[in-house]
């Protein structure tokens, strides 16, 4: 493929992925409001469009027209830049996430992934690490005590649980022998014992790692039960107290985009990626893997929202103790056991 064709195809993929991701963010908000509403025995949005499906549009219009107030006491450059940083890093992770196999359109043979790099997993971890800046800087630049405390707590929480997140994924890397997301999914092909698929959570024995990843992901994305830094009843709203309209919407989008990224990563690492029964004509064989992948992401997001509607939140010291004293040793133990099993089997 020539350089020009490559750039054109990549641009198309980037635009498509961004469009899909932003729509997914908007409709994840809708899904959350509906599911949490039904858990709490009420309807959720029903008025705007059938089943409230146009509610995200209404929210978007509301955010655009709301008064974008910049308080006078803030440190203006960082106040304006922090939501942008949060959103940019939240949306960038989609660049290395594969949605399906290689497909052939006409004469172009391209993977369903914007960038197929050897170290895809490390790139996602790196981008997650950089996402802490959006939170920390917004908390500090808002120049208010609630924001500062919320920002410090949220960033300390994110940094602590990043370690458990990364370590829980290293077991999968040991089993697959590669850091490339595509190869990790390819290593989960086939079945064992006849019908159980070869996913890392079953055959790889990474069910403990899956739950560590789940909990670390809830903490990374500041969701219940780990959302003390941004709960309305705790610190007003934590690091995004002083933000209004579009900047607040950017933080919101960043949080849900992070959720989606984490869900995609869990589907790739533990649940077999896009593997599923494929049949039928050529076009269906290209599209079905995407459907299976999105099904897994949807299930993961549903569990996310389900947990949000069900559990109470942790106090901050309980949260930090849990991350450092419980999850981290468990993740290390999982790593050691996985490494031992792989070494003894070879």
């Amino acid at each position, binding site marked *: 493929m020539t350089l020009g064709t490559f750039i054109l195809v990549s641009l198309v993929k980037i635009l498509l992925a961004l469009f899909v991701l932003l729509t997914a963010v908007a409709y994840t908000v809708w899904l959350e409001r509906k599911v949490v509403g039904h858990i709490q025995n009420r309807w959720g949005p029903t008025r705007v469009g059938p089943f409230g499906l146009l509610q995200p549009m209404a929210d978007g219009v509301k955010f655009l027209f709301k008064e974008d107030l910049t308080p006078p006491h803030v*440190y203006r*450059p*960082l106040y304006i830049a922090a939501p942008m940083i949060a959103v940019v890093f939240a949306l960038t992770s989609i660049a290395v996430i594969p949605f399906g196999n290689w497909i052939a359109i006409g004469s172009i043979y391209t993977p369903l992934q914007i960038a197929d*790099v*050897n*170290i895809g997993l*490390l*790139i996602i*971890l*790196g*981008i*997650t*690490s*950089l996402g*802490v*800046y959006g939170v*920390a*800087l917004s*908390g*500090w630049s808002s120049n208010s005590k609630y924001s*500062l405390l919320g*920002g*410090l707590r949220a*960033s*300390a929480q994110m*940094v602590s649980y990043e370690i458990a997140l990364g370590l829980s994924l290293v077991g999968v890397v040991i089993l697959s022998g590669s*850091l490339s997301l595509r190869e990790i999914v390819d290593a989960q092909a086939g079945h064992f014992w006849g019908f159980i698929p070869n996913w890392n959570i079953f055959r790889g024995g990474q069910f403990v790692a899956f739950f560590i990843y789940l909990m670390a992901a809830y903490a990374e994305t500041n969701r219940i039960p780990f959302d003390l830094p941004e709960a309305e009843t705790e610190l007003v709203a934590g690091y995004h107290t002083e933000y209004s309209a579009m900047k607040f919407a950017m933080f919101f989008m960043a949080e849900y985009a992070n959720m989606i990224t984490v869900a995609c990563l869990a589907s790739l690492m533990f649940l077999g990626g896009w593997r599923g029964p494929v049949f039928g004509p050529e076009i269906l064989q290209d599209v079905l893997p995407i459907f299976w992948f999105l099904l897994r992401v949807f299930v993961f997001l549903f569990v996310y929202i389900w947990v949000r509607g069900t559990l109470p939140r942790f106090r901050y010291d309980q949260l930090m103790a849990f991350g450092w004293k419980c999850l981290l040793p468990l993740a290390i133990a999982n790593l050691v056991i996985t490494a031992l099993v792989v070494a003894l089997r070879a």
Partner: protein
Amino acid sequence: MLHLILFSVFGLICAAAAVNLLVQSHPINSALSLVVVMGSLAVEYLLLGAEFVAAVQVIVYAGAIMVLFVFVIMLLNAGKEERTKGSRVSLFIGIPGVTIGSVLMAWVLITHSGTRSVEAGALPGDPRQIAQLLFHQFLLPFEVTSILVLIAIMGAVVLAARPEALQPTEEKN
């Protein structure tokens, strides 16, 4: 050609951010400029083929060490710098001195280094091969640095703790 363009663009960003670190008076701006330096250095490493080193640079350096710096700046609420007698003296002596030294070094490097050049992705830093080196040839430095990090963790916790938090708890009657 593309290699030269990418190198120049990110080299310029790197150099500009390094100069910005010196020029800014508020430490938080200097910290963020340093993050930009580290990010552009990660791209330079990628251009040289060191993909694993680039990823680790972003994860460890830009994503953890600099977050620590930003935390401390936020916690201590460090304000803008003051101008004291010492800083004026060092400005007059330091900047010309370092400029002369670095111009000399750059001149020597460019004129005397021959025509060696590196291609893009010259030495692919595959994680597998780096791990082979790290755990076979460099095993002793690896273990020693892990003990060093452990000592650093304990030292940091003790040094930054409040004095009353380090007192042994009193017995109740």
